[in-house]
């Protein structure tokens, strides 16, 4: 589903990713671990198509198409979803309105019929319940005054509603206590399916206790330096990132 070949990326003239190769098939969950500054978030932004992240070499193919040729919103409509480490606040726009605008924009882009208010409301209710997202929260401005846990739950709700093909979760565990982490992880696990791939970016092994990956990659200084099974994460937890040429976390 996703093929990354020899990907080089510079940000502000500085090379951050120095030749990444990665293959992800439908149904797989890949974890990308690494110390701060290793290029984890850069990888997520390049996949989403953020401005200022310049691909100098290499390619990314998504479902057989050249991902780098597509705009940010086109990628989203094609099924790329990024759960943000720090979700943005949109004052005055209720979570409900935002969700509806996003879902219908994607449906429009795919040539599907937009959902009317009634059908949409039913869908949102259905998706909100397991994530403990209350009606009150849906009526508040998106992410404004949300706690850390609420923000991450709102991200997972968006993901659940938009049903992406490829979900990238950037440090979804940051700022969460253990209960919030469990709720979020359950939400993510519920979305695991044979048609969907996930990339879980994290610094700590902790999250991977709850979202168990099929493959673990260690990213260090812009390169994938090791790839293994879920045990690799446990190993890292013990030994730290020192042997991969980075300061211990």
């Amino acid at each position, binding site marked *: 589903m996703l093929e990354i070949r020899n990907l080089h990326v510079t940000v502000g003239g500085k090379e951050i990713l120095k030749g990444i190769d990665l293959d992800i098939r439908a149904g797989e969950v890949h974890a990308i671990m690494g110390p701060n500054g290793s290029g984890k978030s850069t990888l997520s932004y390049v996949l989403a198509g953020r401005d200022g992240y310049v691909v100098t070499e290499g390619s990314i193919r998504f479902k057989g198409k050249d991902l780098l040729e597509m705009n940010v919103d086109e990628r*989203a409509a094609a099924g790329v979803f990024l759960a943000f480490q720090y979700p943005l606040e949109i004052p005055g726009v209720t979570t409900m309105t935002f969700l509806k605008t*996003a879902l219908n924009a994607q449906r429009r882009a795919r040539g599907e019929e937009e959902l009317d208010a009634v059908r949409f409301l039913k869908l949102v209710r259905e998706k909100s319940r397991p994530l403990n997202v209350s009606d009150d929260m849906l009526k508040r401005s998106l992410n404004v005054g949300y706690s850390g846990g609420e923000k991450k739950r709102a991200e997972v709700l968006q993901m659940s509603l938009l049903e992406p093909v490829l979900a990238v979760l950037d440090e979804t565990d940051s700022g969460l206590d253990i209960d919030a982490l469990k709720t979020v992880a359950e939400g993510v696990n519920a979305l695991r399916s044979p048609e969907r791939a996930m990339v879980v970016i994290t610094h700590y092994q902790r999250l991977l206790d709850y979202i168990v990956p099929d493959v673990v990659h260690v990213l260090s200084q812009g390169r994938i330096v090791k790839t293994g099974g879920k045990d690799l994460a446990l190993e890292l937890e013990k030994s730290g990132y020192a042997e991969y040429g980075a300061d211990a976390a």
Partner: protein
Amino acid sequence: MAAVKETVETVGEIEKYKYGFFTDIESEKAPLGLTEDTVRFISAKKDEPEWLLEWRLAAFRRWQTMTEPTWAKVTYPPIDFQDAYYYSAPKQTVKLDSLDQVDPKLLETYEKLGIPLTEQKMLAGVAVDAVFDSVSVVTTFKEKLAEAGVIFCPMSEAVKKHPELVKKYLGSVVPSSDNFYATLNSAVFSEGSFVYIPEGVRCPMELSTYFRINEKQTGQFERTLIIADKGSYVSYLEGCTAPQRDENQLHAAVVELIAHDDAEIKYSTVQNWFPGDEEGKGGVYNFVTKRGDCRGENSKISWTQVETGSAITWKYPSCILRGDNSRGEFYSIAISNGRQQVDSGTKMIHLGRNTTSRIVSKGISAGRSSNTYRGLVSVHRKAENVRNFTQCDSLLIGDRCSAHTVPYIETKNPTAILEHEATTSKIGDDQLFYCMQRGIGEEEAVALIVNGFCRDVLQQLPMEFAVEAQKLVGISLEGSVG
């Protein structure tokens, strides 16, 4: 002077291009320029009583001694007031046979605004066929209003049919000597609306509905007078979300509102006049004086405005809170793009006891525009227990525009409690990226963020209109990013 002439010509060019025809209408124009004879000519044309002519002449003489105000943060070439026509007989609007003859760009905007087809035809000046009998609709409205005892008619008709009311109230809120533009208006105003709501009557409909169906003739110097007698209520909507083009470059309207005991007036405006081309050429100069007088106890006046058009906007809808326990409100969205310049705000003059006011102003600047909020909250010596809350928020899009906030506060009574909150923010690249990552296109994302920013004010608009206004917000900012 030359610059103005040039701009006027530019407008002419644009109009010619836009509509693809140029008609030489044999209109009865007053001679070029402004003299006492012009004023007499206008008054005679309208067959006005002697007192009104005298009133106009007094204003004209006063105007000759006045100079244009220069304190606003707007710049434009000097206006030659002698190089303009101050009266022409009602324009013969050219009726088109079908929408096919209308500029497709205009239709595209109507489409985006979601204006119903029949209304699109009326706005574009297409003759409406008999299937939809507009006349009967208007008549129904008129009957309904008459039943309630509401007077709603053109100013010139009111002068003839209800001279006692006009004489009593005209100029009682905005005196003919008020300011340069109001005085000019007093001398040469040609048309406008007159509304009188009798005691205890709740006007049975938004006075907008009628207007939107009745193709509105915007004059250069409009004069509107609304009187809400004791315990009455009226909601009045001026303007239209559809873009309005006008060959008159200078507009100087006056609006006066009077609310007696326990009466309430809600006045909403959507202004979407031609803002000029990309270089700011040819746009409308809008110098408006709007003032409401809460004359009675427990009265209330609420101004809501959405300003997206005009090259220059100079406008401060205000409230004089004379009656005890009266309340004034001002909700404003001012959007400037391209080279537009907006200097707008309000004045809340607290004279009575326990008077309260609320100001919520949302300024959005994009392109190379300049957007200034200028407001005054004044508390007089005898006004006990005054409360005011002011909130001024500015939103910047891009890095070539500017936003300014100039609040004036004067209080002569120590019991007053005045609050002022102000914020300035910028639509961030990260906010846009976030929306777009969810599949929302760039322009839709900007519209979404801006509508969120304006929500408090949009909620004040009459329901059917709020939806259109929301769309308008998006449309006025098209092309502001990227």
